[in-house]
């Protein structure tokens, strides 16, 4: 009798703990469905997933205006937003290099080599979280980060407003773009963010093929596209017209950078970094968050191996793919079709302080 009663109590206790702790129930496929060929769609069905959007989203808190874009463009290209008066946003986010810098890791104030590779700003209007570790929640939030960081633009933000206010034309431009608000860190960030949202990839040969031009890309690239969506499993994360779902994944890179876990302390975020766009990817090496992978073929080889490191946080979708050399070539050929017909950008004429009298030079707010 005693043993029955105690087993009842134990059962009750176990059941309660099971439910309250929210332990996973049910069974299911432990592998992703992409491994199962019966779930593969047709080429034409996949093509439907890659249609470009017809408009750029602007947030209601910071709606589009031509005046904001014009002002934001000036600020983006203005090196006076840095403590040295030498580095602008465009120094690293260079329009001539697909809005990156072609370096394995960025270079900041005093030629300091930074910890991670400069991301492109292409299509950032559609990006949920910014930075490799997702620590910035909007473009407005992100804009001041590099400006203030001592290893990047090294500009004390409390002096930035004073510095820009000493240039009369900026005061006028801010009053036009933000009537009644004037120059503030908030309006500076809003102007830069609005400009950045207008930076959208040009039409790529891939886009023309998606739109129905069967001659726009090679047969190898078409095979590569199909592999991308099936056996190579790329589209699990590099999905949609912008070739990214913005997800944070540990893809098994061997370096010491632990990525997003410093921002969101959950085991799965260990060594997790944001999935970047693949637009213009063949122009934007070297690759990965630390710029350590030199070529697209090397990227494919990393994934074909199932990553360089096995650990608990590793994404289940990073696993040996058994791609042949020919298949890897096809996927790389596909990625080369993602380069847009981006036009040269016309640099803005920046407002300069009036130096016609013996006024002191414009070094207001410069860090010594």
């Amino acid at each position: 009798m005693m043993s029955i009663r105690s087993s009842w109590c134990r059962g009750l206790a176990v059941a309660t703990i099971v439910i309250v702790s929210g332990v996973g129930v049910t069974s299911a496929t432990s592998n992703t469905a992409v491994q199962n060929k019966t779930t593969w769609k047709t080429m034409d069905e996949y093509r439907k997933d890659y249609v470009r959007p017809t408009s750029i989203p602007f947030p209601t808190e910071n709606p589009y205006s031509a005046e904001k874009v014009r002002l934001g463009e000036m600020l983006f290209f203005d090196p006076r937003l840095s403590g040295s008066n030498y580095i602008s946003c465009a120094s690293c986010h260079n329009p001539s290099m697909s809005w990156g810098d072609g370096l394995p890791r960025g270079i900041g104030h005093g030629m300091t080599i930074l910890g991670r590779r400069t991301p492109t700003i292409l299509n950032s209007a559609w990006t949920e979280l910014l930075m490799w570790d997702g620590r910035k929640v909007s473009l407005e939030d992100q804009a001041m980060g590099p400006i203030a960081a001592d290893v990047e633009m090294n500009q004390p933000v409390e002096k930035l407003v004073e510095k820009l206010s000493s240039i009369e034309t900026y005061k006028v431009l801010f009053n036009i773009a933000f009537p009644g608000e004037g120059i503030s860190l908030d309006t500076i960030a809003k102007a830069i963010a609005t400009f950045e949202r207008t930076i959208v990839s040009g039409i790529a040969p891939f886009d023309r093929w998606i739109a129905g031009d069967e001659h726009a890309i090679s047969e190898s690239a078409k095979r590569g596209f199909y592999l991308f969506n099936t056996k190579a499993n790329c589209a699990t994360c590099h999905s949609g017209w912008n070739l990214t779902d913005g997800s944070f994944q540990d893809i098994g890179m061997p370096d010491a950078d632990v990525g997003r876990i410093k921002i969101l302390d959950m085991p799965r975020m260990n060594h997790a970094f944001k999935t970047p766009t693949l637009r213009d990817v063949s122009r934007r090496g070297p690759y990965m968050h630390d710029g350590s992978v030199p070529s697209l073929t090397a990227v494919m080889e990393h994934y074909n191996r199932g990553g360089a490191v096995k650990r608990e946080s590793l994404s289940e979708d990073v696993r040996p793919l058994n791609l042949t050399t020919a298949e890897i070539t096809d996927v790389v050929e596909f990625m080369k079709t993602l380069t847009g017909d981006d036009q040269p950008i016309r640099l803005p004429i920046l407002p300069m302080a009036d130096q016609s009298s013996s006024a002191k030079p414009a070094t207001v707010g410069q860090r010594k």
Partner: protein
Amino acid sequence: MRNYIILAAAIATVTNVAFAAGSTTVNQADKKFSTTELTINKGDVIVFKNDDPFTHNVFSQSPGIAFELKVQKPGESSEIVFAREGTGEVKCAIHPQMKLKLTVK
């Protein structure tokens, strides 16, 4: 054998009691929650089911409703009891565009 039957009955009873408190299923498919807003009562259960072909990691850091589910492989379900009142956002750590506004009253 009788002990095992009683044990199973005990678990079944407790399970039924938990579900009788109110249970809602939220599915995850196409990197979205099946609903973007949900209101439940204190003590209710939400079953999060992963209907996507890849992993999700549902959590919330909002006060009162904070929780973290272990990673869910495709097809897996996890349930969580919301014992306190609160309101906030439920998200997926892997896919930041997945958001669900939850109110527990």
